């Protein structure tokens, strides 16, 4: 909401308050000032001038030399504009003038002839075609009635501080000059008065001109109508145009300008109908009928439906209630009799209609916040008063005022002590009462009644806020909460996440954060099976675009996108992790499961076992000792020979492997990418963080190297299981230090060289004992896995 500061003086007094003071004080009492602009700030030393004489420039065909009276003297100015004539009044930038685009004007010579300034176009004055739709090309020609030497800012009312307020949605009353004047008055402790409009009238009876009925009393809370006759349509006076313009509204004609002026002044949208266009001289407020249409004032044909509230005449719609009038009854140059409408419509209805029509207007944006029915009458009377003041018509006596159920006043208990306790303040009762009265509350001994335009004040807390905002938020003493000692603990899963991040960072991994919604094309990019449950997503019904339309069911896609991006950025290698949420639909009508997963991705100078090592280190760090890695050949996202499912018992808790080259192709990457995804809740379930001290061994360990020849299909995990089982309590460690295939090893077999560490807690093992155990191990390996010693 933009208003010129000077307008406030009609109701209160802002003289002597600097823009900066005003900005700060209003912001601190709740009317946030976005900025204060003065359009004339950068327009100096430009005055009106009268052209006395024009002669041809001696050395230039296209230039003329003007003698111009600028009030106190006559100047010689050279111009190239084609449209100047003797006797015209024009804007003259004097020597030392400043124009809004930063240009400084100085006396100089043009082709040898001295020029003591410059004649200006409207563009050079910082204005636009919209301001002068009829102006011809060249110098701006001003009204001849203006005296010479007048500051151009005063001509166009540019020397004005215009305040831009950010009004919150609960304060439609502040979308008006009167509302903001009230706030201003309370903020600065100034008087505040609004005159009751006085209408003389010219006799007659409105009932002889129009009949009004309200069919939809739920949608229309109040409808006031007044008739004016003998209307003479003309431009509205300068002072009114100036105020409208400062508020960002274009002047049209006196009647339309009055309705807009009232909307700005009272916050009450108004409409004027040409009465001769209302068939049957009737107005009916009703829902639109299916199939009805209306061409609104913006020249767009609107298709209506029965959810929309319309203003209709005896036959057809003539306006969309609260949104915009119809072209069929608009004010025309030859309009003579008008009907003013000042009404209150139900906020949600206006809001929905405006949305459906895609038509948000100054009017609808006020209605949809909920307007005060009590405001309609003063507003319409003020409009009539202006008609008389401007002498552009006569007001027919009588008013039609259809007012349904008047709302009961809201009586709110008033307890200063309770308010102070709630706010942590010590504000005295008198200040509270004075403040509330200044805000037009009725204050009784132990109750208050907010004014009808303050529907947002519903209860105790709202009253407290009213007092506080005027008292000053900055005056509340800061205190520390007392009360029971709060006991703060992180939940086990929160602690686990902290731990996981710490461990992964220690493993040289960098954390990433990615979007949780994505493009459904990821199903195919990851080569998911046609019946994969991962294709079942939570889908956004109003997405920004397809690329962000489904909630991800896997974090691997986000990781692949990040990896691909980094490869594009020429980052040769990366180790990345994300603690991501994936969204898995559950039953119809229920919320999805939001599962936290650890997502890992590495590429460049690394292989499968680097990633597996990280996973193992992670598991060790969080105390998950029971995880097993099983070959997974069926997952289409991964390399069939380089993928493991991570299991605890029968439960699969994650997957790890090299991304399938076909998937890499889909992401446009030609490197080997290793990715893992592990369910965090499963880690929480299976990890045991109950590590206790184990006595350190007193006796030396013995290492034996075993080079085994086994079938290619035998897994390291199988060998390890057998060895552990046989070595029993003496098992102290096993390291695979070489895998070899080739010469000296038979076809389809491989050599696996282990270093087995044996140790007793009770004694030093003898060679004989060690040999015995190793023999047992070898026998079992041969029997169970067909392994032979190399």
């Amino acid at each position, binding site marked *: 909401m933009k208003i010129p500061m000077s307008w406030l003086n009609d109701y209160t007094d802002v003289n002597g308050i600097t823009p900066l003071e005003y900005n700060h004080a209003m912001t601190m009492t709740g009317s946030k000032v976005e900025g204060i602009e003065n359009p004339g700030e950068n327009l100096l030393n430009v005055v009106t001038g009268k052209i006395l004489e024009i002669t041809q420039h001696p050395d230039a065909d296209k230039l003329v030399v003007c003698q111009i009276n600028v009030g106190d003297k006559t100047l010689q100015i050279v111009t190239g504009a084609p449209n100047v004539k003797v006797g015209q009044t024009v804007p003259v930038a004097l020597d030392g003038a400043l124009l809004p685009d930063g240009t400084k004007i100085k006396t100089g010579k043009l082709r040898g002839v001295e020029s003591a300034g410059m004649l200006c176009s409207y563009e050079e004055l910082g204005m636009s075609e919209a301001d002068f739709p009829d102006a011809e090309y060249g110098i701006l020609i001003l009204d001849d009635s203006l005296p010479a030497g007048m500051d151009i800012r005063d001509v166009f009312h540019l020397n004005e501080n215009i305040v831009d307020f950010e009004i919150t949605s609960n304060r439609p009353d502040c979308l008006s000059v009167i509302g903001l004047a009230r706030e201003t008055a309370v903020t600065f402790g100034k008087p505040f008065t609004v005159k009751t409009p006085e209408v003389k009238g010219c006799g007659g009876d409105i009932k002889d001109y129009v009949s009004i009925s309200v069919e939809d009393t739920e949608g229309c809370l109040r409808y006031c109508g007044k008739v004016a006759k003998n209307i003479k349509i003309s431009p509205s006076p300068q002072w009114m145009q100036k105020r409208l313009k400062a508020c960002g509204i274009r002047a049209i004609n006196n009647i339309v300008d009055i309705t807009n002026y009232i909307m700005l002044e009272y916050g009450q949208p108004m409409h004027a109908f040409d009465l001769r266009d209302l068939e049957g001289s009737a107005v009916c407020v009703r829902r639109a009928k299916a199939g009805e249409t209306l061409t609104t004032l913006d020249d767009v044909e609107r298709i209506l439906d029965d959810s929309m509230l319309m203003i209709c005449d005896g036959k057809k719609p003539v306006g969309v209630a609260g949104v915009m009038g119809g072209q069929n009854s608009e004010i025309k140059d030859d309009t003579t009799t008008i009907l003013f409408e000042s009404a209150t419509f139900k906020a949600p209805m206006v809001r929905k209609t405006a949305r459906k029509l895609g038509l948000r207007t100054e009017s609808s944006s006020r209605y949809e916040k909920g307007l005060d029915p009590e405001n309609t009458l003063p507003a319409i009377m003020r409009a009539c008063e202006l008609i008389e003041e401007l002498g552009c018509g006569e007001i027919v006596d009588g008013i039609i005022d259809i007012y349904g159920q008047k709302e009961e006043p809201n009586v709110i208990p008033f307890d200063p002590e309770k308010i102070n306790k709630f706010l*942590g303040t010590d504000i005295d009762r008198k200040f509270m009462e004075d403040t509330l009265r200044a805000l037009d509350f009725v204050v009784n001994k132990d109750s208050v009644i907010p004014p009808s335009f303050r529907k947002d004040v519903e209860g105790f807390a709202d009253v407290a806020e009213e007092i506080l905002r005027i008292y000053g938020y900055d005056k509340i003493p800061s205190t520390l909460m007392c*009360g029971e000692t709060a006991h703060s603990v992180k939940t086990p899963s929160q602690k686990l996440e902290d731990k996981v991040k710490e461990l992964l960072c220690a493993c040289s991994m960098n954390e990433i954060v990615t979007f949780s*919604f994505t493009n459904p094309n990821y199903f195919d990019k990851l080569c998911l099976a046609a019946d994969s449950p991962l294709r079942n997503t939570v889908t956004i019904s109003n997405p920004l675009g397809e690329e962000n339309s489904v909630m991800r069911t896997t974090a691997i896609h986000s990781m692949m996108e990040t990896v691909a991006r980094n490869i594009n950025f020429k980052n040769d290698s990366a180790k990345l992790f994300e603690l991501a949420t994936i969204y898995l639909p559950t039953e119809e009508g229920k919320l999805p499961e939001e599962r936290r997963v650890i997502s890992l991705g590495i590429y460049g100078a690394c292989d499968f076992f680097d990633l597996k090592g990280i996973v193992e280190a992670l598991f060790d760090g969080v105390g998950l000792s029971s995880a097993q890695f099983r070959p997974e050949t069926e997952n289409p996202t991964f390399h069939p020979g380089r993928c493991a499912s991570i299991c605890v018992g029968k439960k699969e808790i994650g997957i790890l492997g090299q991304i399938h080259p076909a998937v890499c192709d889909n992401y446009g990457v030609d490197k080997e990418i290793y990715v893992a995804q592990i369910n965090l809740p499963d880690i929480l379930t299976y990890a045991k963080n109950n590590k206790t001290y184990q006595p350190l061994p007193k006796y030396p360990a013995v290492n034996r190297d075993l080079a085994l020849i086994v079938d290619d299909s035998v897994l390291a995990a199988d060998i390890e299981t057998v060895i552990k089982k046989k070595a029993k309590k003496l098992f102290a460690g096993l390291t695979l230090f070489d895998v070899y295939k080739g010469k000296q090893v038979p076809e389809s077999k491989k050599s696996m060289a282990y270093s087995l560490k044996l140790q007793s807690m009770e004694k030093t093992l003898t060679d004989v004992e060690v040999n015995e155990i190793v023999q047992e191990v070898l026998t079992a390996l041969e029997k169970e896995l067909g392994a032979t010693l190399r």
Partner: protein
Amino acid sequence: MKNQLLSMKEKAENALKNAKNLQDLEDIRVGLLGKKGELTAILRGMGGLSAEERPIIGQLANEVRSFIEEKIEAQKSVLLAAERSEKLKAETLDVTMGGRTPIIGKTHPLTTVLDEVKNIFVGMGFSIAEGPEVEYDYYNFEALNIPKDHPARDTQDTFYINDNVVLRSQTSSVQIRVMEEQKPPIRVIAPGRVYRSDAVDATHSPVFHQIEGLVVDKGITMGDLKGTLETFMKTLYGNDAVLRFRPHHFPFTEPSAEVDVSCFVCGGKGCRVCKGEGFIELLGAGMVHPKVLERCGIDTSVYSGFAFGLGLERIVMRRMNIDDMRHLYENDLRFLNQF
């Protein structure tokens, strides 16, 4: 013999002085004290001594022996020290050459700052609450005093899954979930992702993070809200940070406040960053609306509370001087490695 011993002692002293290295020392020791050494040779003559002379000479011989031994040891440590210092000299490195740096992984800037925020609040006795991102309309709007036709819904541009389910547009939804599950005293923060239908640009993202705070207890005041936020901000930004509370409107708090912090660049004087205001908008806060408390079954004649919500990205971007929000979600390693 006595003279022989004394001259041997003298000879030893001279020889040791000239010893250049450990081998010289050893040669001297063997030559004087070894089995075939001078001392042994001299002592062979002991047989020709009288019974009175024998112990005297014997004692002298022992004295000379231990004298020489001591001298050798002393000289040995001098030589060892010299030798070591030679070696150290030869081992001199160019210590200005770069070290072999182990790669330390880094948390994402959003996590780094969030952890800091969490720690501050945990220190003040707050627990960390969680709630779903795909949320019922009821928790995101209705229960927060934003009914279906409320104009505040327009400003939030919410993503809908269906009529009843949204992607939460604010972490305030967690307030309701906490109050439904827990009786006062309540002291929680709820960090998390929120979603709004904004196209991606330098200052907007359809996914971003908020941190919600909620306190409900007996006798909680607006002063407590101020004190808590001031403590938080001063811990995060340093003691010079000045907070400004000004009235605002949120449907679920009353009184409501917007909280600004003094500009980091100009310290409050006014500059381009703060658009001349000296303050930068930081968070929204207020006393929990009585309707919200009552809907959650909390007796407003006994309990009151405050709530606040702040945007994490904004804090991170200011803290790390990041000028484009897209960096945070692009995850370029060259960006991630900067922090």
